[in-house]
């Protein structure tokens, strides 16, 4: 296992050049299905995303491909922000990217850039319209190329990294009906963007790997990790995020109520069944979102109650 874990870190330039020649992904829109991310790259991306707070940040990922798997070895931040508000934030950083890639080669880091990552603080992991067009562009000129999205806010609240890896389909490609991906709450101010584009891309399965050195270093941090875990509470760390979610929920309820009231005036029986279905599914989604928020709160409280009983109920 040790040899395998570390073998991943060897870069076979000839093999990679061969793959680049064959371009097996050209004819198969769904070619890449899996992503393997190194512990180092994951940590760097999550720390960078969290450092951005509520601002979207972005960076590039270096690695290689192995069959239908894209392997991310490392990642580096780009000096840009606000990916959602700019057409293509990467444009600002081209010079930086080129220099970084060249310098890397000079120091023997042969991996090429194989993708970009950016953060969606508080509104989940999916591709917006701008993201889809940026990724399509990258897949046209920089294959193999992957888009990774991280939600640092939900990472803290869920206690695990909220991350998604995506690839876009060619412009005129009609994808087969996808099985519904894991449900996630989309804030009202983003729902339009989410709804329009979600058929233009697909998500890949993500697994992680680490080297023996990573394992040793992470073991050394084990106590610190536990002290931080035991001494932090999502109830405290996530207050403004939860408040934002509840206010988003209230807006959605307002909107649903307006629509229901509106459809009530023109007489429910005239409403086509499809429309009725939509109203219900919208309300069902709101109910689901509110249950999700509450479940997270109750989990946070449960951990507080358990810690209180364990560590505060005994006086020495």
């Amino acid at each position, binding site marked *: 296992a040790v040899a395998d874990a570390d073998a991943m870190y060897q870069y076979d330039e000839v093999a990679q050049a061969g793959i680049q020649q064959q371009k097996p992904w050209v004819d198969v829109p769904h070619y890449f299905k899996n992503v393997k991310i190194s512990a180092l790259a994951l940590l760097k991306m999550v720390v960078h995303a969290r450092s951005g707070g509520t601002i979207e940040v972005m960076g590039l990922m270096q690695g290689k491909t192995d069959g239908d798997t894209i392997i991310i070895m490392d990642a580096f931040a780009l000096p840009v922000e606000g990916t959602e508000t700019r057409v293509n934030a990467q444009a600002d950083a081209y010079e930086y990217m080129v220099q970084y890639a060249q310098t890397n080669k000079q120091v023997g880091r042969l991996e090429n850039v194989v993708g970009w990552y950016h953060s969606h603080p508080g509104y989940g992991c999916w591709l917006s319209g701008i993201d889809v067009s940026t990724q399509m562009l990258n897949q046209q000129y920089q294959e193999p190329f992957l888009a990774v999205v991280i939600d640092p806010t939900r990472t803290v609240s869920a206690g695990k990294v909220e991350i998604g890896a995506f690839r876009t389909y060619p412009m005129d490609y009609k994808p087969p009906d996808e099985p519904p991906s894991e449900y996630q709450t989309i804030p009202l101010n983003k729902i339009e963007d989410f709804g329009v584009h979600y058929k233009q891309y697909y998500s890949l399965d993500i697994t992680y790997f680490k080297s023996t050195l990573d394992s040793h270093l992470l073991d050394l941090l084990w106590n610190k990790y536990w002290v931080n875990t035991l001494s932090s*509470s999502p*109830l*405290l760390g996530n207050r403004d995020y*939860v408040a934002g979610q*509840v206010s988003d*929920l209230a807006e959605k*309820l307002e909107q649903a109520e307006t629509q229901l009231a509106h459809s009530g005036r023109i007489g429910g029986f005239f409403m086509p069944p499809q429309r009725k279905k939509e109203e219900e599914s919208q309300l069902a989604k*709101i*109910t689901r979102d*509110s*249950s999700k*928020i*509450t479940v997270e*709160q*109750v989990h*946070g*409280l449960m951990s*507080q109650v358990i810690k*209180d009983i364990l*560590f*505060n*109920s*005994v*006086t*020495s």
Partner: protein
Amino acid sequence: EHSLLRQISSLVRRLPAIDSTKFQDDFLMEYNDTLLMTYLATITKC
């Protein structure tokens, strides 16, 4: 073993980890916030 006894003594003396009125007030407020959210979610369900 004296060394082990000293370590246990050091650990046991750290209990309770935190025991102040301010903590109790905060804790109770968190409790009530969560109960309120649960109530809101139940109403939303209805």
